[in-house]
């Protein structure tokens, strides 16, 4: 297990270097002068020159990459061209909001997706199965942007039940400790703030969680059906084990592996989906931040955030693989 973990960890290093190369080079792949792009039509030549110097655009490419890499390794992701704030500090400040949203979404996806998949598999071809498959198919093919807008319009504008965006009502404040508002309001024992942040969380979490939910439900169903057709299940049933024990103890353990992989991949995709969800729901996490930075062509932010999201994605997949090995010892010996 230990050797496997080390081996797996070593394989991600080239991936990380690849990400950094990509992130570094995309500034240079965009047509036009990045400095002019950032500063707009009225920029003075002096200001363009200053920004070019700040970004190091006048150095040779390999040298620029080397400087970039060295800074990144020292935890320096550069300075926002537009606001002048350090990118890493901003990233850390905004990341908890994204974590809160992504965790809620994936929790929702797991808590609803797995039971739905299990019920569908066990009562295969029942009305529930048909219905859940239809909903799952719709869920997988639903663009987040459209779903988010529809949720906001229906529950926010038409019914007026839930807010259309933001993390809190205008007259509620939470003293930031972890910047996870649900947790912070609980820590402060503030029921009103807790309810306010929970109400604000529902729609974005549903919008972001729908696709993973549908994928997890489909994968659970397929995986469980495959396991249920195997001979050891028939043996268990023949021994007279109750159906609940057969499904949850004998079958689920083996069916869980692909579900785990898919869930791990979803965590990565959630970070990408967060860009859209956060933009629609004005959720102040890194998604909205990156979106604004892309529009404003604030390259240090786009670079820093892409590198960060890429690294998180790789690490989550690494954890999934290690978890996989923990659940199924055969994996480590491959």
């Amino acid at each position, binding site marked *: 297990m230990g050797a496997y973990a080390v081996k797996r960890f070593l394989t991600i290093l080239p991936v990380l270097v690849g990400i950094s190369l990509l992130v570094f080079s995309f500034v240079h792949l*965009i*047509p*036009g*002068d*990045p400095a*002019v*792009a*950032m500063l*707009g*039509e*009225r*920029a*003075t030549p*002096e*200001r363009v020159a*200053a920004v070019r110097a*700040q970004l190091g655009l006048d150095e040779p490419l390999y040298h620029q990459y080397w400087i970039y890499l060295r800074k990144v390794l020292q935890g320096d992701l550069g*300075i926002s*061209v*537009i*606001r*002048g704030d350090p990118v890493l500090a*901003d990233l850390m*400040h*905004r990341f908890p909001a994204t974590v809160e949203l992504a965790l809620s979404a994936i929790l929702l996806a797991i808590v609803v997706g797995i*039971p739905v998949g299990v*019920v569908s598999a066990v009562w295969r071809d029942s009305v*529930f199965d048909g219905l859940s498959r239809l909903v799952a198919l719709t869920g997988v093919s639903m663009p987040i942007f459209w779903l988010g*807008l529809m949720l*906001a*319009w229906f529950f*926010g*504008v038409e*019914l*007026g*039940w*839930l*807010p*259309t*965006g*933001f*993390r809190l*009502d*205008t*007259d509620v404040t939470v003293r930031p400790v972890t910047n996870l508002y649900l947790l912070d309001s609980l820590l402060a024992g503030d029921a009103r703030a807790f*309810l306010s942040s*929970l*109400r604000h969380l*529902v729609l974005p979490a549903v919008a972001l969680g729908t696709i993973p939910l549908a994928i997890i439900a489909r994968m659970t169903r397929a995986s469980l059906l495959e396991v249920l057709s195997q001979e050891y299940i028939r043996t268990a049933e023949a021994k007279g084990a109750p159906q609940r024990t057969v499904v949850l103890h004998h079958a689920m353990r083996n069916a869980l592996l692909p579900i785990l992989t898919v869930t791990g991949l979803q965590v990565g995709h959630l970070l990408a989906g967060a860009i859209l969800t956060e*933009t*629609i*729901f*004005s959720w*102040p*996490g890194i998604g*909205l*931040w990156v*979106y*604004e930075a892309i*529009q404003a062509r604030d390259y240090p932010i786009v670079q820093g955030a892409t590198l960060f999201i890429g690294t998180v994605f790789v690490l989550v997949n690494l954890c999934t693989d290690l978890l996989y090995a923990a659940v199924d010892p055969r994996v480590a010996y491959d």
Partner: protein
Amino acid sequence: MKRVIRLLIPCLVGGLLLGGAARAALAASTFVFGAQGEPVCLDPAIITDGISSRITHQIFEGLTKYKGATTEVVPALAERWEVSADGTIWTFTLRKNATFHDGTPFDAKAVVWNFERWRFTKHPQHENQLKAGQTFEYYEGQFGGFDDQSLIAKVEAVNPTTVRFTLKDPQGPFLANLAMFTFVLPSPAAIEKWGTESCKHPVGTGPFRFVEWKPNQEVVLEANPAYWNKAAAPKVQRVIIRNIKDSSQRLAALKAGEIHGMEWVNPDDVRVVRADPNLQVLLRPTNTTGYVAFNYKVKEFQDKRVRTAIAHAINKRGIVNALYGGTGLVANQFQPPPLWGYNKELKDYPYSADRARALLKEAGFAQGLKEITWEDGRKEPLAFWYMPVSRPYYPNPKEIAEAIAADLAKAGVTVGPQTIDWSAYLDKRKKGELPLYMLGWTGDNGDPDNFVCYFFCNPGASREGFYSNKDLAEVLLQAQKLTDQGKRAALYRKAEQMIHDDVSRLFIANNQPPLAFSKKVKGYVPNPTNTEYFNTVQVE
């Protein structure tokens, strides 16, 4: 199945509970405005974006300001002023009872301090900004540069309530420049305290004080109880400017009652807002013009008959009606109608494909115009460039370009609409590489000079498609140096006529950017320069 039911019940209960909390009503003493993005910085001398200036304008005041919905300059922190006969010495008498939000007095010294900060690159509060990668772009632009290049040669505190400006040369738009969002006056003590962090700690004299800036979320202001102008004291206690990036979502928040007002309504949504009995649309008086520019290194465009033909070929009325959501106006000159240099007498080239074809035939293009020849002999199909991004003057550039191309085709001019990344577009335009292109301008200070001179005071500039009209430049430069508005207006009207007669450039449309509000909101006055004040706003 029982399990499913057991799962469903708590879901339903939870749903009801959340629903029971219902739509939170906004307190009437709070005005919540939905902005289309996050402010960049709240130090007005540094910023160039409208989202930031919308906020700083509630906190800070300048010596002069624009009156209501106009670009007329009226007193603000200066009570009155006098100008010397030669137009180079301006003496301002200041308000006696104004104080900054940090308690320090507003006086002549504070004015001098701010102008010295903006002007001198060695001023500690200027130099530190340069080191941090910021500059005082608007000071440089409006007053000719920093240090010795500055048009403002001297600013002196004659006594605590009198400030005297000495200019190197008279400047027509001087008072209008002082009214710009960027030349409002921060507390010197606060700038000295916060340095480059002043962006996050704005301290002015205005009707609202800064409370908090929550990154990516909102900026909170509160009424300034010590505001010097009791007659203009704020009618709401708190102002919250929320960042709602997506325009449909801003509208959803407005309809749901979570915000009271918003800007940048999609052209298609203007009708939706108008149809809602709880909402209202306010149009900002236009201060923006979209144009089509010729490149004068293209031989065909050197022929005035060809340019006139193209002027006749474009159905501006049709474009404005179809693509501006009911907020556009047909333009026939560079300045938009609210500017005092606007030429009311000017008659546009009427839309007529027949007239256009006849003119082309006369110019030797009986078979139509498909290919152009550059001065260096290069021949190529005629490309028509449109911007890849939406701007106030062209809210749907691609659709507008397609409409223009279709109009031109009817007159026998075949163009291929084309675009490229925005920065590359601006770069190509600057180098004079675009043969025929769309672009526009939004005025900064309501002065005609700001509109026309930037484009036509440098004859032959590559940026302006190498258009060279020295007589026109002379008229504009003459107008720039006068301080008598009547005399200046006459010169700008003359300039517009010259541009028109030479068909130098084609002006397509002015846009009146729409704002949407709840009907509970009263007293919001849209201003052409975007300098709008929340102290007049009332929420019922």
